[in-house]
């Protein structure tokens, strides 16, 4: 099988899975088996591409040409490879978790849930592998639309209202800002293909670059740069597996991934570095990091707090990309992985707590460590990774970002990272402390751990967080190709 076929297989596999899931909706065990099998097969397919990419191969799959040289095409490069591998792998874990969560909470419409989930994964892979901005935009919109039924899963009035905010911001920003940005790029340069070194050099310069960058960054609402962040807390009405995989990994990472890709392959790091009008992005990211952390500090609901934490962490990636040094670009890529592992663990834990005890608020968590030791242990590890304490994955990415910032003496970035680390600690540590050492409020429900698939899943990802501290070499190697190209 040629690499191009492998790409096609990776895109089609989840869709086939979706169809099969739909057909087997009446037999839940069979349906879940299919989900797991599809996820495993997908991960295998995606991983099978890595050796080729590591060796510097860039396979390409052409689907169709639309008009004026614009085509739907896919190709794999290090950044996309990383994102795809991440999403595909975590889908397996998340599927295990979903089974425990959805059954434990006796959710309705589970078939629809699994179908939409599979489509969303396919769209996320499409974003990862997109060869040009048009293809990326297409998959980006499919991702938005396919996750809507997941967000509005409960279907009551409050959920529908939140889901409306979700869709309104994501669709509105993409049509209102991203689409004009793409067309502007196309009209000016005549191409939309992602090219190392960027494509706008010589076509657009001066303040227009800053404006175009703004259209892109705010147009990609999924990256949640303030003020485009409001959809993420709104999306927390979704069942927890959705929040875990999609709103900690697939969807939000698709956002920052897109921004990073635009910076590297549309603008070109060098071009952007030479153009002062693009500098605002650094400040916007810094502001988002600090503001989101402060807001997270004031949250009472666990999932909402995690959502604001995500907003802040996403802007780390943006910030890293905006520092515009090779080291920081690698840091951005690594942070995508590190944060994914950590945040999915946190959401898994939140969902496990909800399934076992129906607790959703922070103050209810006092003493819960005694009842759910596995869950809270995983929670603790993940929280430490968010703060950036060794030996967790979060430390590695922060290290690279800071190193990149020092390279250019970018004090804004350095200061922001330090301050936000303090803030992160300020909102995570009290929870951990209370969970382990505080007394449980009397009169609570007597409960133990969540169903075993959920616990298993969150244990795996927690271990992954730890492991990433030690075994990050392959990722580094893969992404230093990026560095090589930039230099």
């Amino acid at each position, binding site marked *: 099988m040629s690499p191009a076929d492998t790409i096609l297989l990776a895109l089609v596999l989840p869709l086939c899975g979706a169809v099969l899931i739909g057909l087997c909706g009446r037999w839940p065990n069979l349906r879940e088996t299919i989900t797991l099998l599809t996820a495993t097969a997908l991960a295998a397919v995606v991983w099978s591409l890595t050796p080729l990419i590591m060796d510097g191969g860039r396979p390409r799959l052409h689907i*169709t*040409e*639309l*008009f*004026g040289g614009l085509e*739907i095409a896919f190709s794999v490069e290090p950044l996309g490879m990383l994102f795809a591998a991440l999403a595909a792998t975590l889908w397996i874990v998340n599927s295990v978790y979903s089974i425990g969560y959805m059954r434990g909470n006796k959710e309705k419409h589970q078939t629809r849930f699994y179908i939409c989930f599979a489509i969303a994964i396919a769209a996320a892979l499409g974003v990862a592998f997109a060869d040009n901005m*048009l293809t990326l*935009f*297409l998959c980006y*919109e*499919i991702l938005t*639309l396919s996750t809507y039924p997941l967000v*509005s899963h409960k*279907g009551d009035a409050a959920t*529908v209202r939140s889901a*409306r905010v979700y*869709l*309104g911001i994501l*669709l*509105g920003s993409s*049509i*209102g800002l991203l*689409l*004009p940005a793409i*067309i*502007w790029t*196309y*009209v000016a340069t005549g191409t939309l293909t992602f090219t190392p070194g960027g494509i706008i050099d010589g076509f657009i310069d001066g303040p227009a670059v800053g404006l175009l960058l703004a259209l892109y960054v705010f147009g990609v609402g999924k990256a949640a740069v303030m003020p485009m962040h409001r959809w993420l807390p709104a999306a927390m009405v979704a069942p927890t597996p959705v929040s875990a995989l999609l709103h900690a990994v697939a969807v939000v990472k698709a956002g920052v991934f897109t921004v990073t890709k635009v910076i590297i392959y549309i603008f070109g790091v060098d071009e952007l570095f030479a153009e002062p009008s693009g500098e605002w992005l650094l400040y916007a990211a810094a502001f988002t990091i600090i503001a989101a952390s402060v807001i997270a500090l004031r949250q009472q609901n666990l999932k909402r707090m995690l959502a604001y934490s995500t907003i802040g962490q996403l802007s780390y990636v943006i910030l890293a990309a905006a520092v515009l040094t090779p080291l920081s670009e690698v840091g951005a890529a690594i942070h995508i992985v590190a944060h994914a592992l950590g945040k999915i663990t946190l959401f898994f834990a939140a969902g496990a707590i909800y399934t076992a005890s129906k607790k959703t608020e922070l103050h209810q968590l006092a003493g819960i460590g005694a009842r759910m030791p596995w869950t809270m242990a995983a929670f603790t590890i993940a929280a430490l990774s968010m703060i950036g304490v060794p030996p967790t994955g979060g430390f590695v990415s922060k290290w690279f970002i800071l190193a990149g910032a020092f390279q250019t003496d970018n004090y804004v970035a350095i200061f922001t990272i330090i301050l936000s680390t303090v803030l992160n600690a300020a909102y995570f540590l009290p929870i951990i402390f209370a969970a382990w050492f505080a007394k449980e409020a009397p009169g609570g429900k007597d409960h133990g751990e969540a169903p075993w698939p959920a616990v298993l899943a969150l244990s795996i990802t927690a271990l992954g967080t730890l492991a990433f501290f030690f075994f990050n070499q392959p990722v580094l190697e893969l992404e230093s190709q990026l560095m090589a190209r930039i230099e």
Partner: protein
Amino acid sequence: MSLATQLPALQVAVPLLTAPLLVLLRGPGLAWAAACAASVMAFVIAISLTASVMTTGAISYAMGGWPGPYGIVLEIDALGTLVLLLVTGASTAALLSGRASLGLDIDAGRQHLFYAAWLIVLAGLSGIAITGDAFNVFVFMEISSLATYILIAAGPDRRALTATFKYLIMGTIGATFYLIGVGLVYMMTGTLNFADMESRIADVSDQRPILVAAGFISVGLALKAAVFPLHLWLPGAYTYAPHVVTAFLAACSTKVAIYVLLRFDFFLFQDNLVGHTMQFAVFLVPLAILGILVGSAVAMVESNLKRLLAFSSVAQIGYILLGASFANEAGLTAAVAHMFNHALAKGALFLAVAAIAMRVNGLRLQDIAGIGRRMPLTTAALAVAGASLVGVPGTAGFVSKWLLLQAAFAQGALGIAAVVVVIASSLAAVFYVWRIVECAYFGNAQAPGDAAAVVTEAPLPMLLGLWLVVIANVYFGLAPELPVSLAESAAADLLRHVP
């Protein structure tokens, strides 16, 4: 003489001569079958004409064997075939899927007359699309208009009658304005043949009557095309017509008028009137933009489903006009492609509405609350067609919106304003389409267990037809080669007449 060379005449003659036969038929089933057969045949002819135009270029056919300008000559070019495909395709899809729905609206004793009128509309609209004679356009315009009044008056509500009367008055004024314009051009050139007019109009020294003619023709056709602010007949006519008729007309009838407007403007006036490009922009761009804004704004607050979609049509007509008013290749390509794509999207939407109307009482938003659970296939079709209307990538609507924005970006400052307007209206479209979809899926039925309980999926032929159009929306979103290449050569054709 082989059959292939007779296709242009057959394109009109088949439906035109099947119609009188239908008047004689008794029994609605037979009439429906005959109408379908004629419509399918017209569609097939349109496809083969398109194929030959794309391979060998424009076709002309001398009616009665008399050469132009003495006889009437049919001229079929890329733009014409695109309109032909729209007209015959919309008619075929609506007829094939609409039998059950029409059966609810019209009693059996009158159905054969209704189907006869339907075929006359089809013949009239196709006739306009392929003729090369200015007066012949008027004749076929009146044929299609008169028959359209019948179709709309067939609506079950009594307001269908007043809406039809309004349309009849405004439509007749529009057609008469057109006739006056043609008369004035004839007075100064002595000919009715488009090609001949084009070559002789340059010699006319006194341009005053020609200028007035341009005014009359533009206003008349704008009335027929429902260009803002001459759209007043459209919401009522679309709302109260039988649902399947709305699907047919919304897909193609206004586009045919725009087609004639484009032809007249680019073949005759652009080149020959001093500063006409400027006038085109000065008069049409504000109207197009106002139409887009007002149509979108009203659609956002309207609660009757068909009215909402009708106002959306007013906005979409603005898009087409906006693209055309750039008067360059990119803009015209976008306008013509949007004619095609909007027809697909609106046709599918109104067919979905027709399917819903068969099972639900009333078409206000609260009436369709919760049908997503009862009619999942119909509602899904509605959602996809809505996405195409909004211009979500992967659907036909996206292609033309892209082309339009691309053309606008190339226009400089004025173009940026146009981009802002189009984007704003797209966001409005997101809003009003979303209102429908969300209501269909998550709205709470007012009387649970009562009306909603008996609601079931629409009949199979309806669903098949609906999904066929919806799939076409996706197909032409991913493989837009046909409409885009037709639109490109149409744009090139139109511009060839401008120095």
